[in-house]
């Protein structure tokens, strides 16, 4: 091992561990053996777990240094398509973390939670307003769980009507992977339908696919291609006429906030990703929240609990109140702390602010698309207007220069730009899905466009410098194949 420290990396927390050390000020006083003498010896642990023995300062320094190895919205432009990486206002965090909110037990009496319940009730009402739905449940803990709730409600609806033959869910080929995975979790058969050359659902293929087995369709609009589904009214008619229901995946709601509502488009059930459209922090992978909204005919099936107001008191409705509910998706009532952050964000935006979101998210996407097209990149759908995001395809560069979408993504990191989403949707070869969001300035978009233009020039002159990127990150490109073959998933002490 080298004497000099590699300053780009941080040792493991276990490397700091010294037996006998610890953040003792954080621990309760020892209780003595008598305190646990009633625990049967046969049920007790023999060897202590492998946890680090480190001081508080060592802990603070270690995790601070780790944090500095990350790109984040607070440090870098983060145009990760389909994820809506907009600024997370600090107020949302601070006022959701007021001590009274944090200390409240989920099973505490409702009388001692009227403040938080009022926020949640008003959040339900606002979500009804922005989606055009009749009833909302806040309990799903992420988008995928919201999808699950939505599709499970469609199942429960058909079953309650004795319509037991329907077992197929239609999903466009461009759908996010969670859509077919969710349909499987609900026990459905997935049927994919193609999109046409302009990115709209192939309506003729859809008409041929629906029938007495059709339970419903899962659709994102704008689609994962960053395009508004122009024939949505026809799609709704075809599915409804076949007796199916329409489920709206709210992944891309940011694009149309204040412009058009899923309920008006004909959707029967929607989920909303609060960590996208309503700016709750992505947290390095979560937590999110995926509330579901439904048309009146699906309201009896909402997952519990749901907040209700009765005589100016707020209370939870449970299985006892909603006997046809699809049930409980979490131990308590979902990610309440995330819901509070979204509530605060929505109150700060208000009616006019929300309309601005759709406007400026769309303006930014179309501006960046225009700049990148002029810089020599190929739009995947050049005849279409971008929604809040758009796709460029590097098929030409991959063929002519041997530089892939992943290479460009990695080289962007050297420019201080987080990479867009790569290789999704799968339909478009060598693609980058770029979503700038409304909170980015023109200057930030210009900087990104310049970086992209420089990478394109570099790819022509010095392609190996692009294909070997990144060069300035804490690590160079990682060996994913080795990671999956020689599994090293936990640290082990030297024998």
């Amino acid at each position, binding site marked *: 091992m080298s004497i000099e420290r590699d300053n780009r990396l941080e040792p493991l927390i276990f490397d700091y561990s010294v037996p006998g050390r610890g953040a003792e000020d954080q621990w309760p006083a020892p*209780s003595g053996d008598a305190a646990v003498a009633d625990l049967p010896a046969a049920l007790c642990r023999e060897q202590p777990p492998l946890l680090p023995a480190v001081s508080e300062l060592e802990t603070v320094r270690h995790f601070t240094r780790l944090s500095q190895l990350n790109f984040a919205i607070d440090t870098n432009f983060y145009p990760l398509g389909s994820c809506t990486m907009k600024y997370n206002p600090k107020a949302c965090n601070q006022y959701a973390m007021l001590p009274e909110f944090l200390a409240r037990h989920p*099973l505490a009496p409702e009388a001692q939670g009227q403040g938080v319940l009022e926020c949640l009730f008003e959040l339900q009402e606002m979500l009804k307003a922005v989606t055009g739905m009749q009833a909302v449940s806040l309990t799903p803990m992420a988008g995928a769980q919201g999808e699950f709730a939505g599709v499970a409600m469609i199942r429960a609806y058909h079953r309650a009507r004795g319509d037991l033959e329907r077992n197929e869910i239609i999903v466009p080929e461009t759908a996010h992977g969670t859509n077919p995975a969710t349909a499987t979790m609900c026990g459905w058969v997935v049927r994919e339908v193609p999109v046409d050359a302009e990115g709209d659902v192939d309506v003729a293929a859809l008409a041929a696919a629906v029938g007495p087995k059709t339970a419903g369709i899962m659709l994102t609009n704008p689609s994962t291609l960053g395009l508004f589904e122009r024939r949505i009214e026809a799609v709704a008619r075809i599915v409804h006429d076949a007796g199916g229901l329409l489920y709206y995946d709210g992944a891309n709601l940011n694009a149309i906030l204040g412009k058009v509502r899923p309920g008006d488009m004909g959707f029967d059930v929607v989920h909303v990703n609060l960590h996208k459209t309503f700016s709750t922090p992505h947290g390095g992978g979560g937590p999110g929240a995926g509330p579901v909204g439904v048309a009146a005919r699906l309201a009896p099936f909402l997952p519990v609990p749901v907040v209700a107001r009765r005589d100016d008191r707020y209370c939870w409705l449970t299985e006892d109140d909603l006997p046809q509910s699809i049930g409980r998706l979490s131990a308590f009532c979902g990610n309440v702390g995330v819901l509070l952050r979204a509530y605060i964000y929505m109150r700060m935006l208000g009616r006019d602010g929300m309309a601005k979101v759709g406007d400026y998210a769309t303006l930014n996407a179309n501006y960046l698309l225009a700049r990148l097209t002029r810089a020599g990149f190929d739009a995947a759908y050049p005849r279409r207007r971008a929604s809040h995001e758009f796709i460029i395809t590097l098929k030409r560069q991959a063929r002519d220069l041997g530089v892939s979408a992943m290479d460009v993504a990695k080289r962007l990191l050297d420019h201080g730009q987080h990479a867009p989403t790569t290789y999704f949707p799968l339909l478009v070869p060598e693609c980058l899905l770029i979503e700038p969001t409304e909170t980015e300035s023109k200057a930030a978009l210009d900087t990104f466009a310049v970086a992209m233009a420089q990478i394109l020039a570099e790819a022509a002159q010095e392609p190996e410098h692009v294909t070997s990127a990144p060069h300035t990150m804490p690590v160079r490109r990682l060996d994913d194949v080795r990671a999956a073959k020689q*599994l090293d998933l936990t640290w082990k002490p030297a024998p």
Partner: protein
Amino acid sequence: MAFVPHTRADVAAMLESIGVESIEALFEEIPAALRISALEGVPEALNEMQLARLMSARAQRDGRHLCFIGAGAYEHHIPAAVWALATRGEFYSAYTPYQAEASQGTLQLLYEYQTMMASLTAMEVSNASLYDGASALAEASLMAVRANRRSRSKRILVPCSVHPHYRRAAVAIAGNQGLAFEELPFADDTGCTPVAALQRYEREDITALVIAQPNVFGGLEDVDTLTDWAHARHALVVAVVNPVSLALLKPPGHWGAKGADIVVGEGQPLGIPLSSGGPYFGFMTTRLEHVRQMPGRIVGRTVDADGRAGFTLTLQAREQHIRRGKATSNICTNQGLMVTAATIHLSLMGAEGLRRTAAAAHARTRELVAALTSLPGVRRQFSGPVFHEDVIGLDVPVAPVLQALAERGIQGGWDLHRHYPQLGSALLVCATETKTAADITRYRDALADCLRATRTA
């Protein structure tokens, strides 16, 4: 306000670059009949100062109370450093570490987390989190069906002493895929699962047996016997555990002769505030042989182009973004920030701090139960050993007593009547290291008052 930074000049230049007259023109592809003019039902904006007043008033309305409720969510001390670090923007405002080279902080932290959780549960591998303990049980049940190739039945035995909300969530989430959850009764005297309850399944095809340790009553199950029974019949064992308890209790990897197969639980006791129920996080660990059946993100250590160690998401062929309809789960977004907090919390606690926390919580609960059962008409419901939670029986209905206690600022426990009416007037109580002798006395005296008032009423 929408946190939009554009000046008028910016907008004009951008529209010119796009080649349109107005922002409105960018929405031309949306059918006109569908457009709305304003979001009726959304109130006018508040600025941050107004918002601060509103939220502070609502928080004050909820107040602070002396809480003796457990039942799956526990009030533990959380060091200030935990959330000071976890809310750093570099953790807080990043997303899933798809770009590994720009996410080494999150990835290394997850690798450290996986190491800690694997060791705490005495298993070989851990994922990077699920949503919460209840949904983790559902995922574990689905995973058991995939992992147990000797079983075709999709039958999962679940003791009634498993938290009722967990059982309901498992049915709601996994039931649509044909899993059958069959309930095992508990013994009247101990509140635990007797081996006799398993006899009728002696010759049947069972996919997995769920064992909660401690169970919802705080009771300690005979985990070794139950585990061996299951393994002798080729059923897998799904353990549901409280991570703090594992500082004292035998980890699932050491249950019986072979150890549990899949371990899940609620991560909230590891530095996560109660927050009315979430966000928390579900953890899951398992044996290496089952890792390809595990749902959720997994981080691996590998090397970069220069041979230096680095971290990356791995085994992604299990996941929905690759495998779509054939994925192990639909989970995508998980509870990353909660895991960040838990990893920091576990670092500050270490094995000794966690052990002291578990022991102190257990000691306070014993003191609480001793104090409460010193009152006339109050007794322990069950006789067996417990960990830091217990059921007390009253000779009057629980609900009015709890309400009277709440009016005195005391949240006295969880009324078991709704889920376990056969127990009569039974109250699940919990104290943790956060409670003092004075707190316990205050509860006892208030309960004495309330009981007296109830009996005279």
